[in-house]
């Protein structure tokens, strides 16, 4: 009995990839595809015809400008098809495989995990690609007739494609992790929605990196060339004041940097999916990979933000000033800087929580790991194995996050905008303590008690105090102090409290000037003590697990 040779990498790429071909078969059947293409054609044709007729007849535009009018609406249509429908299809399709039970067959196929991931990535949304394809002639015609140069539309469509891949990868990861088809669909759509609504707002407050996960920066850069000439010229004038992409001391074109950021995220998603395809029980990321990813994101956050501080482009009020009044006399406020530093801390903390959730092993993984080690005659779990505790790695990430946060804060506060203010090294100690206590406490609870306990803790310690405090604070001015104490219970408020307390340029209102610092020091001490207690409990829990694994 001679089994057939293992498929080579060449035979499973591109059109020859069996997973891709399988979805081409099922999703490109004439009946379903015909209707989808008809709808796409009708909408694209309608947009094209309407904008052309509106432009030439009512706005008296010349033919080139009239043709340009259709480019952006068509791009929006293409984005809706590929970003929303495509992502939903990818996550839903992936969950459907698990739901129907056929995923095991695919696991057994002797193809490298990467080939399987690529097959799904391009196979599942193949109908959506076809729909976009039929709208492209309209775009091509508009670009050609509108005399839009290659240098403008080529980068735009390149980033359009990488953005679609990024979102589809998000959908694949969601579909692999989430077991319920409806939830997978909703979560992936929700993520894409957040990327275009919530994340750009964060980007406005100093965390510029996040906007490069969308098509927006490249789209904005291309805008003057896509709009009718008069409107384009106005936008171009505005853009001359806009910041260019700087990364530490380097300058990049928007398109290159966007592809670089999205490429990193795609790579991480690939690693996650390949790990899962290789072993179903694997954690999504290994310890080293997760820590590297965390540090990489910190580097991107800092690399984007730091060069924008001195020219003032990082501050949200600068943009506001540009739009509303003469920006000549503009200067950032201290509150703004303190708020941005706090937001950096909050985002770092949330990111730390997410990574902690990914790399913390469940008790059953630990038990299996211990039994394997014992069988092999070992006495401790390998540091990088899934079963090993994530404790040291989370400590490293918390410290790396604190370094990033401190560097960002120091650059802000000690910039030319706030003369005379310094950030002493002791602030780093408090930042580190804030992230270490929250991160390690979260980890210890998760590893020792499991996801359900953590979920309840997040609700009752992380979110409810914020809600109660907010309601109290807004209902009566006399309750301001009490509300600040209650809000301080939540670890999510800690970074903001830290910056409000520790930075010399902090200008807290009179009714909060005493309560916030006191609440910060008190809750930080409580949080540190609770974390030490939780860590001791975790040690005991791990010891119990190690002993239990002897049986």
């Amino acid at each position, binding site marked *: *009995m*001679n*089994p*057939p*040779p*293992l*498929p*080579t990498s060449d*035979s499973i790429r591109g059109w020859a990839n*069996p*997973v891709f*071909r*399988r979805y081409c*078969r*099922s*999703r490109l059947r004439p009946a379903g595809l015909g209707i989808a293409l008809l709808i796409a054609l009708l909408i694209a044709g309608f947009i094209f015809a309407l904008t052309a007729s509106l432009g030439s007849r009512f706005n008296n535009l010349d033919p080139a400008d009239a043709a340009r009018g259709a480019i952006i609406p068509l791009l929006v249509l293409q984005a809706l098809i590929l970003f929303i429908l495509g992502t939903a299809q990818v996550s839903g399709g992936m969950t459907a*495989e698990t739901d*129907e*039970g*056929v995923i*095991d*067959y695919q*696991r*057994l*196929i*002797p*193809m*490298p995990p990467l080939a399987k991931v690529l097959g799904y990535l391009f196979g599942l949304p193949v109908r959506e690609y076809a729909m976009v394809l039929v709208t492209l002639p309209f775009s091509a015609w508009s670009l050609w007739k509108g005399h839009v140069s290659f240098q403008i539309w080529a980068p735009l469509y390149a980033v359009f494609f990488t953005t679609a891949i990024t979102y589809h990868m998000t959908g694949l990861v969601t579909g692999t992790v989430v077991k319920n088809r409806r939830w997978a669909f909703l979560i992936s759509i929700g993520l894409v929605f957040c990327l275009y609504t919530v994340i750009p707002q964060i980007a406005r407050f100093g965390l510029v990196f996040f906007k490069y996960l969308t098509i927006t920066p490249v789209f904005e850069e291309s805008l003057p060339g896509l709009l009718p000439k008069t409107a384009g010229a106005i936008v171009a004038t505005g853009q001359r004041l806009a910041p260019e992409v700087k990364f530490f001391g380097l300058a990049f074109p928007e398109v290159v940097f966007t592809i670089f950021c999205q490429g990193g995220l795609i790579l991480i998603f690939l690693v996650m999916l390949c790990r899962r395809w*290789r*072993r*179903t*029980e694997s954690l999504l990321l290994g310890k080293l990979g997760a820590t590297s990813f965390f540090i990489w994101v910190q580097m991107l956050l800092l690399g984007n933000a730091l060069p924008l501080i001195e020219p003032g482009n990082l501050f949200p009020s600068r943009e506001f000033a540009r739009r509303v009044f003469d920006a000549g006399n503009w200067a950032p406020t201290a509150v703004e800087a303190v708020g941005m530093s706090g937001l950096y801390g909050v985002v770092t903390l949330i990111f730390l929580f997410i990574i902690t959730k990914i790399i913390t092993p469940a*008790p*059953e993984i630990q*038990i*299996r790991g211990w*039994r*394997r080690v014992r*069988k*092999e005659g070992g006495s401790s779990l390998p540091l990088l194995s899934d079963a090993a505790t994530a404790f040291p790695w989370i400590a490293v990430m918390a410290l790396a996050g604190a370094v990033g946060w401190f560097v960002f804060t120091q650059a802000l506060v000690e910039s030319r905008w706030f003369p005379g203010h310094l950030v002493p090294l002791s602030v780093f100690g408090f930042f580190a303590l804030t992230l270490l206590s929250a991160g390690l406490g979260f980890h210890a609870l998760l590893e020792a008690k499991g996801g359900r306990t953590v979920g309840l803790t997040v609700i009752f310690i992380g979110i409810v105090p914020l809600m109660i405090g907010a309601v109290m604070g807004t209902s009566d001015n006399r309750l301001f102090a009490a509300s600040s104490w209650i809000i301080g219970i939540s670890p999510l408020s800690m970074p903001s409290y830290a910056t409000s307390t520790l930075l010399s340029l902090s200008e807290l209102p009179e009714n909060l000037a005493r309560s916030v610092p006191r609440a910060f020091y008190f809750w930080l001490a409580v949080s540190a003590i609770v974390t030490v207690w939780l860590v001791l409990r975790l040690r005991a829990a791990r010891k119990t697990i190690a002993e*239990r694994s002897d049986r």
Partner: protein
Amino acid sequence: MPITPAIDIRDLRVDYGNFVAVNDLTLSVPPGEVFGLVGPNGAGKTSTFRVLTTLMEPTYGEVNLCGVDILSDIESARRIVGYMPDLAPVPSDLKVWEFLEFHAAAYAIGSRAARRDRVAECLEEVGLTGQRESWCKALSRGQTQRVVLAKTLLHRPSVLILDEPASGLDPLARRDLRQALRKLAATGATVFVSSHILSELAEMCTSLCVMNRGKLLASGTAEQVREQMGSHKRTLTVTVLAHHQEAATWLETQASVHRLQLAEQQVSFEFTGNDEAQADLMEGLIQQGIRLRAFEEKRSSFEDILIEVAETNRRS
């Protein structure tokens, strides 16, 4: 030169939290065997199969398929093995030939024409040539089982792992399945099969093993397994022309006779001795002057053995 076992499992352990599904299982199956795996629910059969098919990483243990270590060389192991799960699912959006063609391509079976021929061959083997163009979702349970069996056979695996392959099949299809498995074994492939229809498994398999609570209780030929499971115990019924009371009195004095029951001219009892002791017992009765009209022996079936195992589980 020693023959490399088709399936070689050493100290295999599978845990789900605190529950031990497979407990230090050691088992070796030579090539060309149709090997049956028997056990009540929760015995560890499916976990063993999932490890063998690389779908699950064991807690520890070594598993080799045709000399390939499946834990370190997953992709080579996947070329060797063909797996048909219990209540095998099929995709709802593909036709039968498309489903099979996809797997043929994924296993890199030659050219397009070669794949088409192989698909046709496998469909014929499972008696579904007429359903080539049908949608997978439109098939009956039995037909679905057969399509998945065809898929499993596509790449001519050296080791076939079939979890309850006969469930949902009509008697005719079961007979065909038995024949197909034997044919496969004759070509050198090893078939590892589990079933709840134990008498059928005994008929189908050249050897088998019994698992309970993750442990291997017995393995070998059907007869050897019976012996190992303590099923040398048998029920004997003696029908006499007269003097059945005397016969009963004499039998009661014999050490290997238990649970004696009397009916009209008939004495039934459990006998725990071996075949020679049984012959001596008959001779003894005749020497006692008892005229025997009939002598019936009833041995424990596989079902009896497993029911006993399951009952013991339930009680404990």
